[in-house]
């Protein structure tokens, strides 16, 4: 088959158009970040804004009323606005931590079963069903946690606070399980058959093969799934907004209510007065969340790349 000269131009144009679409995604990310960051900038130079929300005020304990104990407090709609970020950070991490404690054993366990021990028919059933979990809208999960799960947990464990980090964390975990499961399962099924055959030929039982050969080889893939799942748990909004109680308090207990960064942005941005300190602080929170999830996701990608190299035998 021969090309007409005309098709060269088409080819050239086609290639350029595809290149533009690829770069537009990159450009979008950069522009979004630039915009969010730009809106939070006054915190760093505007004296009037800093009066309410300087980095110092957002980080350290403040004595808001003379004579009372200094404290960390998030009360942006107060007569004396208070913008401590620490309660929000702690809340976010607590929710993500519970989510990971819940999702890692279930996600990885299901992946080991599906990849190593399930019959073909069983596997074809389990995999899509778990992946279907990813399709549940988070607002539905949040509603479920708010109405059903909270009541169940409170009856069962007698929690003082009905909506708390455990409740939100479990609902978040349900959203994270499919991510961990899919990545871990893919990593394990793509372990080369030659490795398994070699181990079996040396007399290992199927259990030994999966535990001592497949699992260690696929570990970077599993780790990547966990890291990406963590990123999702940090950024997820609707579930925590509905199920966590949204109380900005500092406590080490996971049975207390929490307020996360993402839920704070979602709940408050609609009401905020454009250009106020509150507005800038919310965008600052957005910047932090953006950077954090960016780093986490990049970490996940790096681990995945390592996995590929391992399969190609470049590193052991």
């Amino acid at each position, binding site marked *: 088959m021969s090309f007409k000269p005309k098709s060269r131009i088409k080819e050239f144009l086609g290639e350029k158009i595809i290149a533009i679409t690829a770069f537009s995604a990159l450009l979008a990310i950069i522009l979004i970040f630039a915009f969010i960051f730009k809106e939070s900038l006054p915190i760093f130079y505007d004296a009037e804004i800093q009066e309410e929300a300087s980095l110092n005020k957002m980080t350290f304990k403040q004595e808001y009323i003379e004579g009372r104990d200094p404290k960390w407090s998030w009360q942006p*709609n107060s007569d004396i606005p208070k913008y401590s970020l620490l309660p929000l950070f702690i809340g976010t991490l607590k929710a993500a931590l519970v989510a990971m404690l819940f999702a890692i054993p279930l996600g990885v366990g299901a992946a080991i079963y599906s990849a190593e021990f399930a019959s073909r028919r069983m596997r074809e059933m389990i995999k899509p069903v778990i992946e279907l979990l990813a399709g549940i809208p988070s607002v539905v999960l949040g509603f479920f946690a708010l109405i059903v799960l909270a009541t169940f947990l409170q009856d069962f464990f007698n929690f003082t606070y009905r909506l708390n980090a455990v409740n939100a964390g479990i609902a978040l975990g349900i959203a994270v399980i499919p991510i961990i499961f899919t990545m871990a399962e893919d990593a394990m099924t793509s372990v080369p058959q030659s490795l398994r055959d070699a181990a079996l030929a040396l007399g290992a039982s199927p259990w030994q093969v999966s535990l001592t050969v497949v699992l260690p080889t696929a570990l970077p893939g599993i780790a990547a799934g966990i890291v990406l799942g963590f990123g999702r748990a940090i950024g997820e909004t609707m579930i925590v907004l509905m199920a966590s109680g949204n109380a900005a*308090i500092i406590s080490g207990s996971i049975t207390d209510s929490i307020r996360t960064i993402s839920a704070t942005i979602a709940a*408050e941005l609609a009401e905020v007065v454009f250009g106020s300190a509150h507005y800038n602080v919310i965008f600052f929170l957005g910047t932090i969340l953006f950077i954090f999830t960016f780093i986490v996701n990049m970490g996940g990608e790096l681990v995945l790349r390592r996995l590929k190299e391992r399969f190609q035998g470049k590193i052991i």
Partner: protein
Amino acid sequence: MKKLVLVSLMILLAVSIITAGSTITIKGSDTLVRLGQRWAEEYMKKNPGVIIQVSGGGSGTGIAALLNGTTDICEASRDMKSKEYKLAEKKGFKPVRYSVALDGIAVFINKDMPIKELSLAQLKGIYTDAITNWKEIGGPDHLIILYGRENNSGTYAFFKKQVLDREDYADRTQTLPGTAAVVNAVAKDKWGIGYGGIAWAKGVKFVAVKKDDTTKAVIPTSESVSSGAYPISRELYWFFSSEPTGEMKKFLDWALSEEGQQIAEEVDYVPLPKK
């Protein structure tokens, strides 16, 4: 054949222009959204061809939408802040406010909590963490679990101003997205206390509220709110970007008429006092 297509296209265009002319969008307070929807349904039934779209999101969201020109009517359970009025002025218009109904903010507790009445001072103590145990106000010995609204809610702002004297809510207050969620939580939490519009509070127990220790405690009802005897009540507003005309004016007049106010009462809001 071509002509036929052209003609039918033109008819379609004409029809869509005519109907687009009488589409009204309403946005704002979650407290008012149910009433807005009932009004819209009834009005659309009576006036076919008029399309009214109602959505919630909070008073603040509605006011922002009005300022940005993305809604015709803004429902709000609070007045606009001076900052918001200034912003409107900057954009070159003067918002017009109409009271469309009254609403009492009920304080509710679980059905099993043996408390009947509270004073405004006690409520303030409870929500500012000065009173933390039910036994301090005549109940059993247990921590009081606070439920409230998110800080983008008009109810949050109103309760803070009217009951808390503008002091901060206790940090540990569990804030929920919507009065229905607060009611649900208190219905299921034996030690809970919450607040919200009287239209929503089904399945929980209303607390009678007294202004101070010398006055009688009053249960929030249509009558006690309308007469002003119940101490925590407010007006609910519609904001327009300018004096309403045409279909919007007709809709407003109808909502304020006896018929419209009757509907407000049917869905448990309080009708405006008759002039």
